[in-house]
Protein backbone atom coordinates (compact mmCIF):
# COMPACT_ATOMS: atom_id res chain seq x y z
CA UNK A 1 0.00 0.00 0.00
CA UNK A 2 2.72 2.44 1.08
CA UNK A 3 4.85 1.26 -1.80
CA UNK A 4 1.99 1.80 -4.25
CA UNK A 5 1.59 5.38 -3.05
CA UNK A 6 5.29 6.01 -3.52
CA UNK A 7 5.18 4.68 -7.05
CA UNK A 8 2.10 6.72 -7.77
CA UNK A 9 3.83 9.92 -6.64
CA UNK A 10 7.02 9.09 -8.52
CA UNK A 11 5.08 8.33 -11.69
CA UNK A 12 3.12 11.55 -11.37
CA UNK A 13 6.48 13.32 -11.20
CA UNK A 14 7.72 11.46 -14.26
CA UNK A 15 4.63 12.58 -16.19
CA UNK A 16 5.13 16.19 -15.11
CA UNK A 17 8.75 16.22 -16.30
CA UNK A 18 8.47 14.05 -19.40
CA UNK A 19 5.02 14.77 -20.82
CA UNK A 20 5.77 18.35 -21.99
CA UNK A 21 8.67 17.00 -24.05
CA UNK A 22 6.53 14.24 -25.51
CA UNK A 23 3.84 16.77 -26.34
CA UNK A 24 6.41 19.07 -27.94
CA UNK A 25 7.92 16.38 -30.15
CA UNK A 26 4.51 15.19 -31.35
CA UNK A 27 3.31 18.76 -31.90
CA UNK A 28 6.08 19.30 -34.44
CA UNK A 29 4.42 16.68 -36.68
CA UNK A 30 1.01 18.33 -36.50
CA UNK A 31 -0.41 20.72 -39.07
CA UNK A 32 -0.06 24.31 -37.80
CA UNK A 33 -3.77 24.68 -36.97
CA UNK A 34 -3.75 21.70 -34.61
CA UNK A 35 -0.93 22.82 -32.33
CA UNK A 36 -3.26 24.86 -30.14
CA UNK A 37 -5.54 21.97 -29.20
CA UNK A 38 -5.07 19.47 -26.42
CA UNK A 39 -4.72 16.29 -28.45
CA UNK A 40 -1.41 14.52 -28.18
CA UNK A 41 -1.33 12.84 -31.58
CA UNK A 42 -1.54 14.68 -34.91
CA UNK A 43 -4.59 13.87 -37.04
CA UNK A 44 -2.30 14.00 -40.07
CA UNK A 45 1.44 13.54 -39.74
CA UNK A 46 3.44 16.18 -41.58
CA UNK A 47 7.07 17.27 -41.83
CA UNK A 48 6.08 20.77 -42.90
CA UNK A 49 7.39 22.37 -39.68
CA UNK A 50 10.82 20.84 -40.15
CA UNK A 51 10.86 21.74 -43.85
CA UNK A 52 10.25 25.37 -42.93
CA UNK A 53 13.06 25.34 -40.34
CA UNK A 54 15.60 23.92 -42.76
CA UNK A 55 14.44 26.31 -45.48
CA UNK A 56 14.56 29.46 -43.35
CA UNK A 57 17.71 29.10 -41.24
CA UNK A 58 21.10 27.41 -41.80
CA UNK A 59 20.57 25.27 -38.74
CA UNK A 60 22.98 22.53 -39.85
CA UNK A 61 25.72 25.09 -40.10
CA UNK A 62 24.81 26.36 -36.62
CA UNK A 63 24.98 22.80 -35.32
CA UNK A 64 28.46 22.42 -36.80
CA UNK A 65 29.54 25.75 -35.29
CA UNK A 66 28.35 24.60 -31.89
CA UNK A 67 30.14 21.30 -32.37
CA UNK A 68 33.45 22.95 -33.28
CA UNK A 69 33.23 25.39 -30.37
CA UNK A 70 32.37 22.67 -27.86
CA UNK A 71 35.04 20.28 -29.16
CA UNK A 72 37.87 22.81 -29.07
CA UNK A 73 36.84 24.16 -25.67
CA UNK A 74 36.55 20.68 -24.15
CA UNK A 75 39.89 19.54 -25.62
CA UNK A 76 41.63 22.66 -24.35
CA UNK A 77 40.10 22.45 -20.89
CA UNK A 78 41.08 18.80 -20.58
CA UNK A 79 44.67 19.21 -21.82
CA UNK A 80 45.65 22.53 -20.24
CA UNK A 81 43.22 22.21 -17.34
CA UNK A 82 44.62 18.84 -16.36
CA UNK A 83 48.17 20.16 -16.66
CA UNK A 84 47.20 22.91 -14.22
CA UNK A 85 45.40 20.46 -11.97
CA UNK A 86 48.39 18.11 -12.02
CA UNK A 87 50.76 20.94 -11.22
CA UNK A 88 48.53 22.03 -8.32
CA UNK A 89 48.03 18.51 -7.01
CA UNK A 90 51.32 16.75 -7.46
CA UNK A 91 54.12 19.23 -8.01
CA UNK A 92 55.60 21.54 -5.43
CA UNK A 93 56.59 25.01 -6.50
CA UNK A 94 56.72 28.50 -5.12
CA UNK A 95 53.38 30.28 -5.41
CA UNK A 96 51.36 27.12 -5.91
CA UNK A 97 49.01 27.78 -3.02
CA UNK A 98 48.57 31.37 -4.13
CA UNK A 99 47.54 30.20 -7.59
CA UNK A 100 45.11 27.72 -6.06
CA UNK A 101 43.51 30.38 -3.87
CA UNK A 102 43.37 32.75 -6.81
CA UNK A 103 41.48 30.10 -8.74
CA UNK A 104 38.96 29.68 -5.93
CA UNK A 105 38.54 33.46 -5.91
CA UNK A 106 37.77 33.55 -9.64
CA UNK A 107 34.95 31.09 -9.05
CA UNK A 108 33.34 33.41 -6.52
CA UNK A 109 33.17 36.47 -8.75
CA UNK A 110 29.70 36.69 -10.33
CA UNK A 111 29.94 36.58 -14.11
CA UNK A 112 28.01 39.82 -14.63
CA UNK A 113 31.00 41.79 -13.34
CA UNK A 114 33.10 40.49 -16.23
CA UNK A 115 30.43 40.40 -18.89
CA UNK A 116 30.74 43.89 -20.37
CA UNK A 117 34.52 44.39 -19.92
CA UNK A 118 35.17 41.00 -21.49
CA UNK A 119 32.89 41.88 -24.38
CA UNK A 120 34.61 45.21 -25.04
CA UNK A 121 37.93 43.37 -24.97
CA UNK A 122 36.71 40.88 -27.58
CA UNK A 123 35.60 43.80 -29.72
CA UNK A 124 39.06 45.37 -29.48
CA UNK A 125 40.70 42.09 -30.39
CA UNK A 126 38.48 42.02 -33.48
CA UNK A 127 37.08 38.65 -32.43
CA UNK A 128 33.41 39.43 -32.88
CA UNK A 129 31.63 37.46 -35.59
CA UNK A 130 34.15 34.66 -35.38
CA UNK A 131 34.30 31.34 -33.57
CA UNK A 132 37.52 32.54 -31.90
CA UNK A 133 35.47 34.93 -29.79
CA UNK A 134 33.31 32.00 -28.65
CA UNK A 135 36.23 29.67 -27.98
CA UNK A 136 39.28 31.45 -26.60
CA UNK A 137 37.74 33.10 -23.50
CA UNK A 138 36.50 29.68 -22.37
CA UNK A 139 39.55 27.55 -23.08
CA UNK A 140 40.18 27.37 -19.35
CA UNK A 141 37.67 26.49 -16.69
CA UNK A 142 38.33 26.73 -12.96
CA UNK A 143 35.57 24.27 -12.04
CA UNK A 144 37.09 21.64 -14.31
CA UNK A 145 40.56 22.25 -12.87
CA UNK A 146 39.16 21.88 -9.36
CA UNK A 147 37.47 18.58 -10.20
CA UNK A 148 40.60 17.22 -11.87
CA UNK A 149 42.82 18.36 -9.03
CA UNK A 150 40.63 16.65 -6.47
CA UNK A 151 41.01 13.41 -8.37
CA UNK A 152 44.75 13.78 -9.01
CA UNK A 153 45.49 14.42 -5.33
CA UNK A 154 44.38 10.89 -4.47
CA UNK A 155 46.86 9.24 -6.86
CA UNK A 156 49.82 7.57 -5.11
CA UNK A 157 52.98 9.64 -5.47
CA UNK A 158 55.13 6.51 -5.65
CA UNK A 159 54.20 5.63 -9.20
CA UNK A 160 54.94 9.18 -10.31
CA UNK A 161 58.35 9.05 -8.61
CA UNK A 162 59.05 5.71 -10.25
CA UNK A 163 58.30 7.21 -13.64
CA UNK A 164 60.54 10.18 -12.88
CA UNK A 165 63.41 7.87 -12.03
CA UNK A 166 62.84 6.21 -15.41
CA UNK A 167 63.41 9.64 -16.93
CA UNK A 168 59.81 10.54 -17.74
CA UNK A 169 59.05 14.25 -18.11
CA UNK A 170 56.08 15.70 -16.24
CA UNK A 171 53.94 16.15 -19.37
CA UNK A 172 54.52 12.53 -20.32
CA UNK A 173 53.67 11.41 -16.80
CA UNK A 174 50.46 13.40 -17.02
CA UNK A 175 49.29 11.82 -20.25
CA UNK A 176 50.62 8.27 -19.89
CA UNK A 177 50.15 7.65 -16.16
CA UNK A 178 47.79 10.21 -14.63
CA UNK A 179 45.21 10.33 -17.43
CA UNK A 180 44.54 6.57 -17.66
CA UNK A 181 44.04 6.51 -13.88
CA UNK A 182 41.66 9.47 -13.86
CA UNK A 183 39.12 8.67 -16.57
CA UNK A 184 36.06 9.33 -14.35
CA UNK A 185 37.30 12.80 -13.40
CA UNK A 186 38.13 13.59 -17.04
CA UNK A 187 34.64 12.48 -18.08
CA UNK A 188 33.07 14.58 -15.34
CA UNK A 189 35.06 17.67 -16.30
CA UNK A 190 34.29 17.08 -19.98
CA UNK A 191 30.55 16.74 -19.37
CA UNK A 192 30.34 19.85 -17.21
CA UNK A 193 32.15 21.91 -19.81
CA UNK A 194 30.07 20.39 -22.60
CA UNK A 195 26.69 21.17 -21.03
CA UNK A 196 27.66 24.70 -20.09
CA UNK A 197 29.14 25.40 -23.48
CA UNK A 198 26.48 23.73 -25.60
CA UNK A 199 23.64 25.52 -23.86
CA UNK A 200 25.23 28.98 -23.61
CA UNK A 201 23.11 31.65 -25.28
CA UNK A 202 23.99 35.02 -23.76
CA UNK A 203 27.62 35.16 -24.88
CA UNK A 204 26.97 34.17 -28.52
CA UNK A 205 24.13 36.71 -28.63
CA UNK A 206 26.62 39.38 -27.61
CA UNK A 207 29.54 38.40 -29.80
CA UNK A 208 27.99 36.99 -32.98
CA UNK A 209 25.72 38.91 -35.35
CA UNK A 210 26.59 37.17 -38.60
CA UNK A 211 24.38 34.16 -39.22
CA UNK A 212 27.35 32.17 -40.54
CA UNK A 213 28.95 31.96 -37.10
CA UNK A 214 25.94 31.58 -34.85
CA UNK A 215 25.72 28.68 -32.45
CA UNK A 216 22.70 26.42 -32.45
CA UNK A 217 20.92 27.70 -29.31
CA UNK A 218 21.53 31.27 -30.41
CA UNK A 219 20.11 30.65 -33.86
CA UNK A 220 17.04 28.87 -32.52
CA UNK A 221 16.48 31.66 -29.98
CA UNK A 222 16.72 34.34 -32.67
CA UNK A 223 14.52 32.32 -35.01
CA UNK A 224 11.79 32.50 -32.38
CA UNK A 225 12.36 36.06 -31.16
CA UNK A 226 13.54 37.71 -34.34
CA UNK A 227 10.57 36.73 -36.43
CA UNK A 228 12.29 34.20 -38.67
CA UNK A 229 9.56 31.80 -37.69
CA UNK A 230 6.95 34.42 -38.71
CA UNK A 231 4.91 33.62 -35.62
CA UNK A 232 4.32 30.08 -36.86
CA UNK A 233 4.31 27.74 -33.89
CA UNK A 234 5.22 24.50 -35.66
CA UNK A 235 8.63 25.65 -36.91
CA UNK A 236 9.47 27.21 -33.52
CA UNK A 237 8.81 23.92 -31.78
CA UNK A 238 10.60 21.97 -34.51
CA UNK A 239 13.68 24.16 -34.11
CA UNK A 240 13.52 23.59 -30.35
CA UNK A 241 13.34 19.82 -30.87
CA UNK A 242 16.33 19.92 -33.21
CA UNK A 243 18.22 21.91 -30.57
CA UNK A 244 17.31 19.45 -27.82
CA UNK A 245 18.12 16.37 -29.87
CA UNK A 246 21.95 16.28 -29.72
CA UNK A 247 22.24 16.85 -25.99
CA UNK A 248 19.30 14.58 -25.18
CA UNK A 249 20.97 11.81 -27.18
CA UNK A 250 24.31 12.25 -25.42
CA UNK A 251 22.48 12.44 -22.11
CA UNK A 252 20.57 9.21 -22.61
CA UNK A 253 23.80 7.37 -23.47
CA UNK A 254 25.83 8.79 -20.58
CA UNK A 255 23.00 9.60 -18.16
CA UNK A 256 24.68 8.14 -15.09
CA UNK A 257 27.81 10.22 -15.73
CA UNK A 258 25.76 13.33 -16.46
CA UNK A 259 23.86 13.17 -13.20
CA UNK A 260 26.91 12.33 -11.09
CA UNK A 261 29.02 15.01 -12.80
CA UNK A 262 26.56 17.83 -12.40
CA UNK A 263 25.74 16.81 -8.85
CA UNK A 264 29.44 16.94 -7.96
CA UNK A 265 29.61 20.62 -8.91
CA UNK A 266 26.81 21.37 -6.47
CA UNK A 267 28.06 19.16 -3.67
CA UNK A 268 31.36 20.97 -3.66
CA UNK A 269 29.83 24.40 -4.15
Amino acid sequence: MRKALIYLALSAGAVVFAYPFVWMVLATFKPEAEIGNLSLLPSVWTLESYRLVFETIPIVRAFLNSLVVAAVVIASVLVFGSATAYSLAKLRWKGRDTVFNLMLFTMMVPFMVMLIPLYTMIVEFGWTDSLIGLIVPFMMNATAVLILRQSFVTLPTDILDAARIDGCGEWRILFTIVWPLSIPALVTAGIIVFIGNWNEVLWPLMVIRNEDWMTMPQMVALFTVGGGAQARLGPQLAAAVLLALPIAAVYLVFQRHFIASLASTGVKG
Partner: protein
Amino acid sequence: MHKTKHSTRLPGERSGLLMAAPYLIHLSIFFGYPLLFAFVLVFHRWDIVTPMEFIGLRNFARLFQDDLFFRALANTGVFLVIHIPLQIIVALFFAELLNRKLRGRSFFRTVYFLPVVVSGVVVAILFQRLFAFDTGYFNGLITSMGGTRVPWLVSPKWAMPSIALMATWKNVGFYVILFLVGLQNIPASMYEVATIEGASTWQRWWRVTLPLLNPMLVTVVVLSTIGGFSLFVEPYLITGGGPMNSTLSSVLYIYNQAFSFNHMGYAAALGLFFALVILMVVLLQRRLVEEDIY
Protein backbone atom coordinates in the same frame (compact mmCIF):
# COMPACT_ATOMS: atom_id res chain seq x y z
CA MET B 1 57.92 3.77 2.05
CA HIS B 2 58.62 7.37 2.97
CA LYS B 3 59.85 8.72 -0.28
CA THR B 4 58.72 12.20 0.61
CA LYS B 5 62.09 12.88 2.19
CA HIS B 6 63.52 13.14 -1.29
CA SER B 7 63.05 16.83 -0.82
CA THR B 8 66.54 17.81 -1.87
CA ARG B 9 65.13 17.90 -5.40
CA LEU B 10 61.44 18.67 -5.22
CA PRO B 11 59.52 17.42 -8.22
CA GLY B 12 58.27 20.37 -10.11
CA GLU B 13 60.04 23.48 -8.92
CA ARG B 14 60.35 24.48 -12.55
CA SER B 15 57.91 22.25 -14.40
CA GLY B 16 55.18 23.08 -11.89
CA LEU B 17 54.99 26.70 -12.88
CA LEU B 18 55.50 25.76 -16.51
CA MET B 19 52.52 23.41 -16.54
CA ALA B 20 50.30 25.95 -14.82
CA ALA B 21 51.52 28.68 -17.16
CA PRO B 22 48.77 28.30 -19.81
CA TYR B 23 46.17 28.66 -17.07
CA LEU B 24 47.92 31.67 -15.56
CA ILE B 25 48.27 33.41 -18.90
CA HIS B 26 44.64 32.75 -19.75
CA LEU B 27 43.60 33.88 -16.29
CA SER B 28 45.41 37.18 -16.52
CA ILE B 29 44.07 37.99 -20.00
CA PHE B 30 40.47 36.77 -19.70
CA PHE B 31 39.86 37.24 -15.99
CA GLY B 32 42.39 39.64 -14.52
CA TYR B 33 42.24 42.25 -17.23
CA PRO B 34 38.43 42.40 -17.58
CA LEU B 35 38.07 42.51 -13.80
CA LEU B 36 40.42 45.49 -13.56
CA PHE B 37 38.94 47.09 -16.65
CA ALA B 38 35.48 46.81 -15.06
CA PHE B 39 36.62 49.29 -12.43
CA VAL B 40 37.80 51.67 -15.14
CA LEU B 41 34.72 51.28 -17.28
CA VAL B 42 32.27 52.15 -14.51
CA PHE B 43 33.68 55.70 -14.34
CA HIS B 44 33.26 56.31 -18.04
CA ARG B 45 30.66 56.87 -20.68
CA TRP B 46 31.45 54.70 -23.67
CA ASP B 47 29.50 53.61 -26.72
CA ILE B 48 32.43 51.43 -27.83
CA VAL B 49 32.75 53.42 -31.10
CA THR B 50 33.83 56.90 -30.01
CA PRO B 51 36.57 57.43 -27.36
CA MET B 52 35.75 56.84 -23.70
CA GLU B 53 34.67 59.86 -21.71
CA PHE B 54 35.47 60.11 -18.01
CA ILE B 55 32.33 61.00 -16.05
CA GLY B 56 33.39 60.23 -12.48
CA LEU B 57 30.61 58.83 -10.36
CA ARG B 58 27.77 59.78 -12.69
CA ASN B 59 27.02 56.15 -13.60
CA PHE B 60 26.42 55.39 -9.94
CA ALA B 61 24.41 58.54 -9.35
CA ARG B 62 22.26 57.55 -12.28
CA LEU B 63 21.91 54.00 -11.01
CA PHE B 64 20.33 55.15 -7.76
CA GLN B 65 17.73 57.12 -9.67
CA ASP B 66 17.07 54.42 -12.21
CA ASP B 67 13.63 52.92 -11.71
CA LEU B 68 14.45 50.04 -14.01
CA PHE B 69 17.46 49.05 -11.90
CA PHE B 70 15.27 48.79 -8.83
CA ARG B 71 12.58 47.16 -10.91
CA ALA B 72 15.00 44.44 -12.00
CA LEU B 73 16.02 43.89 -8.37
CA ALA B 74 12.40 43.69 -7.26
CA ASN B 75 11.59 41.28 -10.10
CA THR B 76 14.48 39.06 -9.05
CA GLY B 77 13.11 39.22 -5.52
CA VAL B 78 9.67 38.07 -6.72
CA PHE B 79 11.31 35.28 -8.68
CA LEU B 80 13.38 34.08 -5.72
CA VAL B 81 10.56 34.27 -3.18
CA ILE B 82 8.53 31.84 -5.30
CA HIS B 83 11.33 29.80 -6.82
CA ILE B 84 13.42 28.93 -3.74
CA PRO B 85 10.72 27.55 -1.40
CA LEU B 86 8.93 25.77 -4.25
CA GLN B 87 12.14 24.22 -5.46
CA ILE B 88 13.18 23.07 -1.98
CA ILE B 89 9.79 21.52 -1.20
CA VAL B 90 9.45 19.71 -4.53
CA ALA B 91 13.08 18.57 -4.59
CA LEU B 92 12.97 17.31 -0.99
CA PHE B 93 9.71 15.48 -1.70
CA PHE B 94 11.10 13.53 -4.64
CA ALA B 95 14.52 13.03 -3.03
CA GLU B 96 12.83 11.55 0.03
CA LEU B 97 10.77 9.20 -2.18
CA LEU B 98 13.83 8.13 -4.15
CA ASN B 99 15.96 7.57 -1.05
CA ARG B 100 15.07 3.88 -0.69
CA LYS B 101 15.49 0.61 -2.49
CA LEU B 102 13.12 0.80 -5.41
CA ARG B 103 12.79 -0.80 -8.78
CA GLY B 104 13.06 1.80 -11.51
CA ARG B 105 14.86 4.30 -9.31
CA SER B 106 17.38 5.22 -11.97
CA PHE B 107 14.56 5.57 -14.52
CA PHE B 108 12.84 8.19 -12.39
CA ARG B 109 16.12 9.98 -11.75
CA THR B 110 16.85 10.07 -15.46
CA VAL B 111 13.43 11.52 -16.29
CA TYR B 112 13.51 14.15 -13.53
CA PHE B 113 16.95 15.23 -14.67
CA LEU B 114 16.09 15.58 -18.35
CA PRO B 115 14.96 19.25 -18.20
CA VAL B 116 18.23 20.11 -16.44
CA VAL B 117 20.44 19.11 -19.36
CA VAL B 118 18.25 20.51 -22.12
CA SER B 119 18.98 24.09 -23.21
CA GLY B 120 17.01 26.88 -21.58
CA VAL B 121 16.04 27.96 -25.10
CA VAL B 122 14.15 24.70 -25.62
CA VAL B 123 12.36 25.01 -22.31
CA ALA B 124 11.48 28.65 -23.01
CA ILE B 125 9.99 27.84 -26.43
CA LEU B 126 8.09 24.91 -24.96
CA PHE B 127 6.61 26.90 -22.08
CA GLN B 128 5.73 29.79 -24.33
CA ARG B 129 3.35 27.32 -25.98
CA LEU B 130 2.11 25.85 -22.72
CA PHE B 131 1.52 29.28 -21.16
CA ALA B 132 -0.08 30.93 -24.22
CA PHE B 133 -3.32 32.71 -23.31
CA ASP B 134 -5.66 31.67 -26.12
CA THR B 135 -4.12 28.55 -27.59
CA GLY B 136 -1.86 27.40 -24.75
CA TYR B 137 -1.95 23.92 -23.30
CA PHE B 138 -2.48 24.93 -19.66
CA ASN B 139 -5.38 27.25 -20.40
CA GLY B 140 -6.81 24.59 -22.70
CA LEU B 141 -6.79 22.17 -19.78
CA ILE B 142 -8.26 24.74 -17.42
CA THR B 143 -11.11 25.77 -19.74
CA SER B 144 -11.90 22.16 -20.61
CA MET B 145 -12.48 21.61 -16.90
CA GLY B 146 -14.69 24.66 -16.76
CA GLY B 147 -12.22 27.16 -15.31
CA THR B 148 -11.31 30.59 -16.60
CA ARG B 149 -8.08 31.29 -18.44
CA VAL B 150 -5.07 32.36 -16.43
CA PRO B 151 -3.15 35.32 -17.94
CA TRP B 152 0.18 33.47 -17.39
CA LEU B 153 2.52 35.68 -19.37
CA VAL B 154 0.30 38.58 -20.36
CA SER B 155 -0.43 40.04 -16.95
CA PRO B 156 2.32 41.90 -15.06
CA LYS B 157 1.15 40.19 -11.89
CA TRP B 158 1.39 36.66 -13.28
CA ALA B 159 4.35 36.83 -15.64
CA MET B 160 7.22 36.59 -13.16
CA PRO B 161 5.56 33.87 -11.06
CA SER B 162 4.98 31.94 -14.30
CA ILE B 163 8.65 32.23 -15.17
CA ALA B 164 9.58 31.14 -11.63
CA LEU B 165 7.32 28.11 -12.07
CA MET B 166 9.00 27.26 -15.36
CA ALA B 167 12.50 27.68 -13.90
CA THR B 168 11.54 25.40 -11.02
CA TRP B 169 10.36 22.76 -13.48
CA LYS B 170 13.64 23.03 -15.37
CA ASN B 171 16.02 22.97 -12.40
CA VAL B 172 14.34 20.89 -9.74
CA GLY B 173 15.82 17.59 -10.98
CA PHE B 174 19.28 18.92 -10.20
CA TYR B 175 18.26 19.67 -6.62
CA VAL B 176 16.55 16.29 -6.25
CA ILE B 177 19.96 14.74 -6.91
CA LEU B 178 21.72 17.10 -4.48
CA PHE B 179 19.24 16.32 -1.70
CA LEU B 180 19.51 12.64 -2.51
CA VAL B 181 23.26 12.84 -1.97
CA GLY B 182 22.60 14.73 1.27
CA LEU B 183 20.07 12.16 2.49
CA GLN B 184 22.38 9.28 1.70
CA ASN B 185 25.14 10.91 3.74
CA ILE B 186 23.02 10.78 6.90
CA PRO B 187 24.23 7.75 8.87
CA ALA B 188 21.53 5.14 9.48
CA SER B 189 22.58 5.02 13.14
CA MET B 190 21.14 8.49 13.67
CA TYR B 191 17.70 7.20 12.75
CA GLU B 192 18.13 4.11 14.89
CA VAL B 193 18.85 6.21 17.94
CA ALA B 194 15.83 8.40 17.25
CA THR B 195 13.60 5.37 16.80
CA ILE B 196 14.79 3.79 20.03
CA GLU B 197 13.99 7.01 21.83
CA GLY B 198 10.48 6.75 20.49
CA ALA B 199 10.46 9.46 17.85
CA SER B 200 7.65 9.33 15.29
CA THR B 201 8.36 9.43 11.56
CA TRP B 202 7.63 13.15 11.47
CA GLN B 203 9.75 13.86 14.49
CA ARG B 204 12.61 11.92 12.97
CA TRP B 205 12.25 13.97 9.83
CA TRP B 206 12.21 17.33 11.65
CA ARG B 207 14.81 16.49 14.30
CA VAL B 208 17.23 14.31 12.37
CA THR B 209 16.85 14.66 8.62
CA LEU B 210 16.36 18.40 8.33
CA PRO B 211 19.18 19.53 10.65
CA LEU B 212 21.62 17.10 9.07
CA LEU B 213 20.55 18.25 5.64
CA ASN B 214 21.34 21.84 6.54
CA PRO B 215 24.64 22.15 4.65
CA MET B 216 22.90 20.91 1.51
CA LEU B 217 20.02 23.28 2.14
CA VAL B 218 22.47 26.19 2.26
CA THR B 219 24.02 25.03 -1.00
CA VAL B 220 20.63 24.78 -2.67
CA VAL B 221 19.53 28.23 -1.49
CA VAL B 222 22.80 29.82 -2.60
CA LEU B 223 22.83 28.12 -6.01
CA SER B 224 19.18 29.01 -6.62
CA THR B 225 19.85 32.61 -5.71
CA ILE B 226 22.78 32.88 -8.08
CA GLY B 227 20.59 31.18 -10.69
CA GLY B 228 17.83 33.73 -10.09
CA PHE B 229 20.18 36.64 -10.63
CA SER B 230 21.51 34.98 -13.80
CA LEU B 231 18.03 34.67 -15.31
CA PHE B 232 18.23 35.74 -18.94
CA VAL B 233 17.10 33.31 -21.63
CA GLU B 234 13.55 32.94 -20.34
CA PRO B 235 12.58 36.63 -20.20
CA TYR B 236 14.66 37.42 -23.30
CA LEU B 237 12.89 34.81 -25.35
CA ILE B 238 9.38 34.72 -23.94
CA THR B 239 8.45 38.17 -22.65
CA GLY B 240 11.30 40.47 -23.65
CA GLY B 241 11.14 41.72 -20.07
CA GLY B 242 7.49 42.69 -20.28
CA PRO B 243 4.61 43.08 -19.70
CA MET B 244 5.34 46.48 -18.18
CA ASN B 245 8.90 45.42 -17.25
CA SER B 246 7.52 42.85 -14.84
CA THR B 247 9.99 40.19 -16.01
CA LEU B 248 12.98 42.45 -16.62
CA SER B 249 15.83 40.50 -15.02
CA SER B 250 19.22 41.78 -13.89
CA VAL B 251 21.13 40.24 -16.78
CA LEU B 252 18.49 41.23 -19.33
CA TYR B 253 18.74 44.82 -18.14
CA ILE B 254 22.54 44.79 -18.43
CA TYR B 255 22.15 43.31 -21.90
CA ASN B 256 19.64 45.97 -22.94
CA GLN B 257 21.77 48.83 -21.65
CA ALA B 258 24.81 47.48 -23.46
CA PHE B 259 23.25 46.43 -26.74
CA SER B 260 20.09 48.47 -27.23
CA PHE B 261 21.59 51.75 -25.98
CA ASN B 262 25.37 51.15 -26.26
CA HIS B 263 25.86 52.28 -22.67
CA MET B 264 28.91 50.14 -21.91
CA GLY B 265 29.98 52.10 -18.83
CA TYR B 266 26.53 52.07 -17.30
CA ALA B 267 26.03 48.40 -18.13
CA ALA B 268 29.33 47.60 -16.40
CA ALA B 269 28.23 49.61 -13.36
CA LEU B 270 24.98 47.65 -13.28
CA GLY B 271 26.94 44.40 -13.45
CA LEU B 272 29.09 45.46 -10.54
CA PHE B 273 26.10 46.42 -8.44
CA PHE B 274 24.08 43.33 -9.14
CA ALA B 275 27.16 41.29 -8.22
CA LEU B 276 27.44 43.17 -4.92
CA VAL B 277 23.76 42.51 -4.23
CA ILE B 278 24.29 38.79 -4.95
CA LEU B 279 27.21 38.61 -2.53
CA MET B 280 25.21 40.41 0.16
CA VAL B 281 22.12 38.24 -0.30
CA VAL B 282 24.17 35.05 -0.27
CA LEU B 283 26.02 36.03 2.91
CA LEU B 284 22.74 36.94 4.57
CA GLN B 285 21.13 33.66 3.53
CA ARG B 286 24.03 31.63 4.85
CA ARG B 287 23.69 33.34 8.18
CA LEU B 288 19.89 33.00 8.30
CA VAL B 289 19.72 29.38 7.25
CA GLU B 290 22.49 28.36 9.59
CA GLU B 291 20.94 30.15 12.58
CA ASP B 292 17.47 28.98 11.77
CA ILE B 293 18.19 25.32 12.08
CA TYR B 294 20.45 25.17 15.09
